């Protein structure tokens, strides 16, 4: 009897582990009009198989990852390649990320794109092992290799502009900032937003809250927490709340919408007004700070397709439309938009330098 027990335990454990890791996320979808040639990318340039490793949240997060997915989809419809899409889990280790990237590279996926700075240490190792595979990483510039493109965004610039919009909209002179994780990346959003608000009126209070402390990345996928924080800020009198917190922002936007007219949410990364999951709350989304990960991903794929793969740090900013703000819903009055456009020019010309640390 005892032996059966042990055996069953072993079976369950191994099965559980296998399922948990295997089911993690692997899917392969093929394009209907797949290009005939089966040669792998590289010298000839033609892409046949693209490996995509998303950050926590994955495709469908209504924000950061979805933006990357749009770029991928656009390239896919033009070049017709096969895609393997995988996503990170909350609380996973560098070793697991490394394994994911290596699986893609070893499986002949070329190029391989890693979405999010958490992949940096893993990518550094895998890219060295596979010098003939092209890699790209979003939001990190620590990996400098010939076959790696570091796609960097100036989030502080778009955050500055929506900060101005918040300051021009608030009636209570209190606005809120919700950050996903208390790290250097989100500090750029924070710094830009605060500077933008204070550019309009230095007397406005910015209430700030980060949902989790590194290395805990749960703050990007905690809508309950986002909702609670937004409620707290609303009861302290804030009437415009900007969240740079991945899918936690969904909760914040819902809380703002539930608070009624005159309270505004500002979205992040994608134009959240357009997102289906937020259709019920869109009348409260003032604007969104855009981070066009889609165009960066697309440009990278295009460069590989053209046989001239991007390499090294690639900056996406206001000048090349890498970042910006959304006007969907027309909630920004023309007076506000005029001011934002002027500030945009000043940032491009260098008259305004936006800080990157709060």
């Amino acid at each position, binding site marked *: 009897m005892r032996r*059966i027990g042990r055996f069953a335990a072993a079976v369950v454990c191994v099965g*559980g582990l296998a399922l948990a890791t295997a089911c*993690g996320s692997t899917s392969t979808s093929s394009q209907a009009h797949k290009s005939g040639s089966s040669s792998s990318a590289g010298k000839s340039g033609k892409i046949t198989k693209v490996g995509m490793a998303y950050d926590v949240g*994955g495709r469908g997060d209504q924000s950061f990852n979805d933006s990357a997915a749009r770029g991928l989809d656009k390239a896919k419809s033009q070049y017709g390649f096969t895609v393997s899409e995988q996503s990170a889990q909350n609380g996973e280790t560098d070793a697991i990320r490394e394994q994911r990237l290596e699986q893609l590279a070893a499986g002949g996926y070329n190029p391989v794109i890693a979405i999010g700075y958490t992949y940096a240490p893993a990518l550094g190792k895998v890219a060295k092992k596979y010098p003939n595979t092209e890699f790209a990483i979003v939001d990190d510039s620590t990996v400098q290799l010939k076959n790696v493109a570091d796609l960097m965004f100036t989030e502080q610039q778009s955050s500055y502009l929506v900060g101005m919009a918040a300051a021009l909209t608030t009636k209570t002179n209190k606005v809120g900032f919700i950050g996903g994780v208390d790290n250097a990346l989100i500090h750029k959003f924070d710094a830009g937003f605060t500077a933008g608000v204070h550019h309009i009126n230095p007397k406005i209070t910015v209430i700030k809250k980060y949902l989790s402390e590194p290395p*805990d990345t749960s703050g990007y*996928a905690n809508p*309950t927490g986002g909702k*609670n*924080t937004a409620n*707290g800020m609303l009861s302290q009198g804030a009437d415009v709340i900007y969240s740079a917190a991945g899918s936690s922002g969904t909760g914040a936007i819902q809380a703002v919408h539930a608070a009624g007219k005159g309270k505004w949410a500002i979205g992040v990364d994608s134009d959240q007004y357009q997102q289906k999951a937020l259709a019920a709350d869109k009348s409260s989304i003032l604007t969104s700070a855009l981070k066009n990960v889609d165009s960066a991903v697309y440009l990278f794929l295009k460069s590989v397709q053209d046989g001239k793969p991007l390499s090294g740090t690639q900056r996406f900013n206001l000048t090349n439309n890498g970042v910006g703000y959304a006007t969907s819903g027309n909630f920004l009055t023309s007076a506000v938009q005029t001011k934002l456009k002027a500030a945009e020019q000043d940032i491009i010309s260098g008259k305004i330098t936006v800080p990157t640390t709060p």
Partner: protein
Amino acid sequence: MAATSLEGADAPQPRTAKAAPRAVGRLRPWQVMIALAALFVVISLARQLSGGTDLTSVGQWGGTLSFAMPIGLAGLGGLWAERAGVVNIGLEGMMVLGTFGGGYVAWHTHSAWLGLLAGIALGALGGLLHAYLTVTLGVDHIVSGVAINLLAPGFAAYLSKLAFTTPAATAQGGGQKQSPPVPGFSRITIPGLSSWLAHLDAHHWFLVSDLAGLIGGIVTGLSVITVLAVALLIGSYFVLWRTPFGLRLRSCGENPTAAESLGVNVYRYKYAAVLVSGGLAGLGGVFIAMVNSNFFLDGQTGGRGYIGLASMIFGNWRIGGLAAGAGLFGYTDSLQGRADTTSVHALLLIVAVLLIGLALWNGYRRRYLRAGIGLAIGALVVVWFTATKSLPAEFLVVTPHITTLLVMGLASQRLRMPKADGLVYRRGQGT
């Protein structure tokens, strides 16, 4: 012999000469009421002194409820299983199943209530697996529980990819890690009363506003599922402690050999308990996905199942204690998230007052060493409070965990778990 053991199960402290006087968790109702009232006055005083108005605001109490309920439901699930002698560390996995079941079925059928049933059913399915492994096969309870915790998230992630990446789902905002928005449950707000209480709350009068905040938090936007959860907590108490079924179930956790010798079908009771346990954890998952949020999201449970288990241990395997544990965690978790630094800072003042109060009590009982240590730590906390204006951010997010640890360390030295809890029982092993 057997008879005394069963009686022991009825009144948790065994009737041996060495038994402790009245163990923690066996306070009389009026003592509990006085303690709670005193705590409320302390909090009110701290709010008045520090200006941390969020300590007792309507929104804070509402937040407390929404954070505490999933933990309380998971803890209640743990209590059912452990009272029947099965350790259920798989609660977390069963909650994950609940979030997926709720999200998938509610989206598919456009009915929140069907989603609720599906979440409970999937959680109970996890419970069934655990019961089969631990009761029928005799697998170590922890091994089986851990296996379920590994299996369930993988299972949910796999199914969510299948279910929510279809064109119909993505058109409504689904993705490989989340479901499209699902319908919610109705919420109760008492029209005149809620706004009047919010108005009172805003005046910040000592005790009056605090009480208004508390009641306002309960009567504003109260989900019917919260009502259901509270009813389940109270109902579980009556079923487990006031019915023959409950007595037999608990006897399986105290002394299954004796129970079997009296004709109780131990396996059947353990199965029933673990099934209910899984169902309650599943309901906790539904609460997270459909009350606190409006979609299934991969990794949404965030370890609430483990915290539920901890709150049950904190509560000495009893309903009241478990509710207090869940409430404490919910209160601090909600408060730290509400971005009012003054209020979280004021928690230090409350901790200091409680520590000093406990020290004075120890002094009265002539336990001078404990009193001295308590006073010293209390004084240090007071110094910390007066010398700073806010808590560091790294500290802030772990406030709930630290508070729970502190209280457990202070109050939980006399915990008593069911005697045969976690032991593998084979039918007929006593003969």
